[in-house]
């Protein structure tokens, strides 16, 4: 029986009287129709010249029915999207302590530089002599990543963290094959993010879960029994999803290697130790780095990300295509497997078209150069300091499953809500009314009713104090039995709780034109 997952609590209730207006807009918060309900046929917001007369070369394959895109003028389209944007929480506008997502400030300098024509307007297949500057960015970013992680090799190719994980495991699979071994199992701790087991399965391995200790970590005693000759790799997140540093990591790495397996580290939380710890010194064989977490590339409402992977010597040769080489003629790609093998590499293949997320490389490098190594170290210290400050300021009224100090995020369970009738979800929704984005809830799964708070280095003490004050007040509200305000929450958001059950039972995944009403004869 699978008990895992995020509950929803949908109670259809009285419309909040205060929200009733003639237009149903509420001050600056506008109700906005779908673009399809706004558009008119024939209208367009882009003035393009009429094509000079020409002889069509499509013949029978010309499109017969239009896609059905609404037509709008530019001001209409702009207003539509501005109004939509106003219905989003954002890190620019408010505290966004979404645990394990690392919602830190996104410097606009990064955006400006990524838009330079020399980066934004270069084609992935144009003559390589004409993109030496792009190669130089990739080389410099690689240098930073290798130096910061203390690892000898890196590939920039993966399009996101999840693809980085896949990249790491496919390299491990290739390395095992090169050793003439077939190992089928990947060990993943219970507390791991769901992507880890999903990736292991995608890479053709079977997944075996490893239980966590009572203090939220993995220890050798618990791992050892799993370490057989059929184990290909262990996937460990460090700092882990409970916001804790895996103390035994070096011993674990040794045991993993003794068992002939590889050690994959999920680098999602690298931001907690960047500039302070070189994962290379922890015995790691591969680790992906989410540039959008540690290195401030924007989350963009859910991507695009970028997930470069650093490798140990044991795995370096198995990095995916394309490879980058530098010789007298300057930089160039090796895109063909035979050429790569001739050069002694054993790439496991190609993960995507072209060469990775250039736009993200520029942004991340801009952030690195801005902070420098001293700044990055301070980033880690401030992130950890802020998380511990939140933990220390709340643990007397909320319940923390594990004693501090924590790393970059503070984890609470719902013990403190026992008997109040208020759930973690209710508590999160109440925070919305007070102007905060809720923390990550019901993750990690190993903690009941988890609330994972990650302030990052971006927040001022003032903001943290305000959040603490609100959280403490909400706790006493809950304890005072004022459950109604929680159950109704949020009431001040553009929408109140949404019916996820309806959405899943009767999926409506796209707009459809209303069927024309039959006119009576």
């Amino acid at each position, binding site marked *: 029986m699978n008990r895992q997952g995020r509950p929803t609590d949908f109670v259809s209730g009285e419309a909040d009287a205060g929200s009733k207006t003639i237009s149903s807009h509420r001050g600056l918060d506008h109700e906005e129709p779908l673009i399809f309900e706004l558009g008119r046929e024939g209208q367009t917001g882009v003035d393009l010249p009429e094509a000079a007369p020409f002889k069509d070369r499509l013949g029978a394959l010309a499109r017969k029915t239009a896609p059905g895109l609404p037509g709008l003028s530019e001001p209409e389209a702009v207003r539509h999207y501005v109004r939509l944007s106003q219905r989003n929480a954002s890190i620019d506008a408010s505290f966004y302590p979404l645990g394990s997502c690392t919602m830190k400030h996104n410097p606009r300098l990064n955006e400006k530089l990524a838009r330079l024509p020399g980066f934004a307007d270069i084609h992935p297949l144009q003559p390589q002599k*004409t993109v030496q500057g792009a190669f130089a960015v990739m080389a410099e970013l690689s240098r930073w990543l290798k130096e910061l992680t203390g690892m000898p090799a890196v590939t920039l190719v993966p399009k996101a963290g999840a693809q980085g994980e896949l990249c790491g495991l496919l390299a491990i699979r290739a390395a095992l094959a090169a050793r003439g071994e077939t190992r089928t199992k990947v060990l993943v701790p219970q507390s791991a993010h769901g992507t880890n087991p999903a990736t292991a399965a995608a890479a053709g391995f079977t997944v075996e879960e490893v239980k966590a200790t009572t203090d939220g970590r993995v220890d050798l005693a618990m791992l050892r029994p799993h370490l057989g000759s059929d184990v290909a790799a262990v996937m460990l997140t460090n700092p882990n999803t409970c916001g804790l540093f895996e103390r035994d990591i070096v011993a674990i790495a040794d045991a993993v290697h003794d068992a002939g397996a590889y050690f994959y580290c999920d680098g999602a939380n690298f931001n907690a130790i960047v500039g302070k710890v070189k994962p290379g010194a922890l015995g790691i064989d591969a680790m992906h780095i989410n540039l959008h977490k540690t290195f401030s590339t924007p989350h963009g409402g859910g991507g695009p990300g970028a997930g470069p992977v650093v490798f140990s010597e044991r795995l370096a040769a198995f990095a995916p295509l394309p490879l980058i080489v530098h010789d*007298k003629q300057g930089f160039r790609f090796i895109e063909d497997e035979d050429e790569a093998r001739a050069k002694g590499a054993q790439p496991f293949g190609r993960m995507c078209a072209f060469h990775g997320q250039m736009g993200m490389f520029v942004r991340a490098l801009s952030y690195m150069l801005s902070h420098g190594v001293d700044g990055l170290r301070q980033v880690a210290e401030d992130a950890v300091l802020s998380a511990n400050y939140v933990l220390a300021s709340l643990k007397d009224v909320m319940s923390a499953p594990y004693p501090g100090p924590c790393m970059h995020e503070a984890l609470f369970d719902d013990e403190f809500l026992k008997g109040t009738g208020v759930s973690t979800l209710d508590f999160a929704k109440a925070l919305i009314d007070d102007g905060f984005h809720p923390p990550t809830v019901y993750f990690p799964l190993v903690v009941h009713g988890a609330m994972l708070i990650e302030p990052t280095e971006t927040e001022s003490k003032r903001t943290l104090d305000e959040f603490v004050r609100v959280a403490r007040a909400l706790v006493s509200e809950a304890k005072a039995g004022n459950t109604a305000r929680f159950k109704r929450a949020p009431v001040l958001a553009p929408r109140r709780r949404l019916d996820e059950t309806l959405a899943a039972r009767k999926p409506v995944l796209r707009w459809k034109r209303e069927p024309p009403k039959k006119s009576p004869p």
Partner: protein
Amino acid sequence: MNENLPELKRTVLHALHVGLGAKMVPFAGYEMPVQYPTGILKEHRHARESAGLFDVSHMGQAVLKPAGGDPARALETITPADIAGLSEGQMRYALLLNDKGGVSDDFMAARLPHGKGALYLVVNAATKESDFAAIADETKERATLEPQPDRALLALQGPRAEAVLARHAQGVAELGFMRLGHFIVAGARATVSRSGYTGEDGFEISLDAKDAERVARALLAEPEVLPIGLGARDSLRLEAGLPLYGHDLDESTSPIAAGLGWTIGKRRKLARDFLSADILMAELLEGTGRKRVGLTLLDKTPAREGAEIVDTTGRPVGHVTSGGFSPTLNAPIAMGYVDTELAADGTELGVVVREVQRRAVVTPMPFVPHRYKRSAE
């Protein structure tokens, strides 16, 4: 107004030239040897058959050092050559352009070995002040230009040059064409490049002025080596089909018409990021209507610069930009610009010398094949 001639400058080897009995003439503001007692013809043939030593210290040498940026990128703001693409020890012929699509000078640029990106430049004597001023100004954001007035420049040219220089400078024989390196030449620290302007294999040796005479004498002491003056230098470069700035190239000539489109780097052509790019890229595709050609005159009268070139009907079609007698071919040759449709090899033309139209034929350049030591690649 000032009646007296401007004070002529002298190179550090002036005494040596005089001592060798050279005939000294004014050239580009310098007192330079036009020929030695040997005579221009013999000097010319000697350079082709053995080795000749030229004093080219009057030319402008300088080093462009990084200052907050890459000097190569900085230099590219005033030349269309691919300077950034120069690897350490690599040398390249480059042009300075004006905004009318004309040439304001030509020069040599090389990336110094172990120079932290610094560039070594050699510009023409007559234009060195203006060139240096322009380069310094254009590059000041990222680099500093350090002219080297107290350095001399010797050219050792000819088929025996390698053997001769190898006796005085270990390792020079391995130097490839248009490459440069630091060597000890006859005990003096020098920067030597395998280059020249005669069409022969040879070297150019940049060294401290105080060492120049000693090194020059050491080389002249070699049996294969004779000193060569400006006279032979000009006939040698003419036979080699090499343009001379101020004569075959000037502010009004298009580098495309001059056949120097190759000096514009491929990357630069795509980026169109140099002065007059639009004009020159269009000329590359559409042509300029004019073309620099070589001419062989069919009777013995040499044609001089400025002589009118006419077609067989006597219609003027261009002018000679340099001309003279070719000792190697034992015939008068010239180069000049003509309408493209008359530029094909073998085209019959005329050159007007002293009011008389003389028969000439378009001849592929170089008139005398180059004998550079290109390293295998």
